[in-house]
């Protein structure tokens, strides 16, 4: 049994067996960009899900953008989030209040970041098939641009729905498209 300590931002504790972590789907954005990333027909055979990504959007006039992660095609105001961040000068936090249709789930790079700079994140969706709980996602994300535009975010998201998650959709909050070479991978962790 191999102790796995590297699941960052996860509520998973203790040791896991390496064979309990499986790749489910991957999307790499091609030339021309892509407005959203969808993981569909997610099997219910895992206990938790993890999304790992490298991303940049076409948001104009900004070096950073946020992305939103939503479930089962629900675009209603059924989400909430809290953030803790560092911007290289100070630490701060923000939230959305009780409900929003556009939860900030991670920070990524955008159009005025230095060419070839992408943001990255690891997000864990815990107990995604449990029909007795609202669903909670938390993430660690960041972008560094070798200047004052670096940002690091811890974020907690809530989907106020007890349905099992079978579809995940990821979109830029401000930009229109994820740019080429952005890559998103979905993994399952067995219970």
């Amino acid at each position, binding site marked *: 049994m191999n102790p796995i300590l590297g699941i960052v931002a996860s509520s998973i504790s203790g040791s896991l067996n390496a064979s309990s972590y499986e*790749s489910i789907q991957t999307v790499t954005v091609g030339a021309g960009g892509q407005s959203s990333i969808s993981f569909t027909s997610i099997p219910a055979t895992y206990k938790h899900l993890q999304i790992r990504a490298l991303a940049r959007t076409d948001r104009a006039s900004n070096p950073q953008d946020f992305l939103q992660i939503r479930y089962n095609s629900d675009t209603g105001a059924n989400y909430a989030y809290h953030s803790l961040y560092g911007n290289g000068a100070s630490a701060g936090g923000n939230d959305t209040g009780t409900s929003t249709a556009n939860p900030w789930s991670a920070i990524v790079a955008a159009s005025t970041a230095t060419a070839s700079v992408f943001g990255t994140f690891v997000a864990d969706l815990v107990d995604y098939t449990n029909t007795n709980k609202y669903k909670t996602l938390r993430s660690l994300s960041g972008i560094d641009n070798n200047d004052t535009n670096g940002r690091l975010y811890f974020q907690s998201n809530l989907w106020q729905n007890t349905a099992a998650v079978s579809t995940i959709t990821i979109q830029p909050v401000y930009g229109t498209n994820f740019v080429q070479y952005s890559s998103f991978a979905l993994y399952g962790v067995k219970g």
Partner: protein
Amino acid sequence: MAAGSTYTPIATTTLGSAQASYTFSSISGSYTDLILVIAGTLNSSSSVYIQCNSDTGSNYSRTYLQGNGTSATSGRDSSQTYAALGYLNSTAQGNCIFQFQNYSNATTYKTILCRAGAADDLTRAMVGLWRSTSAITSILVAPVSGSFATGTTLTLYGIAAA
């Protein structure tokens, strides 16, 4: 469809004596992400840095967020000769977990996340940048000052996406 299990230990070591640095070399490009886990102590409190592919140029930067039990602070450093993303001290068993996403792509600069801390001291999260589009084939990890203490473990994992 799931592609089967993937979270593979690539290399691991437990230091038999104090050591100023450790290098994971000849890293295969067959994974999607790398995760480097360090558990242990140093002989004095220090940030823990990485250098990729033996690059000692001023091609690294970082932005961090940390809490020390009294306050939360954030800072940054640009154009460094290493990315000081981790942290350990001499008095508490701590850990540093580095995440290298898409480490073998030859198109993007490499953005690295790290969480680190020593429970009697501070906890820290960082994002670092290595301004190179080269695939990462080796990682040197070392304290900015001092050495890794005897018994410190360093393990590199690979994750392969479907």
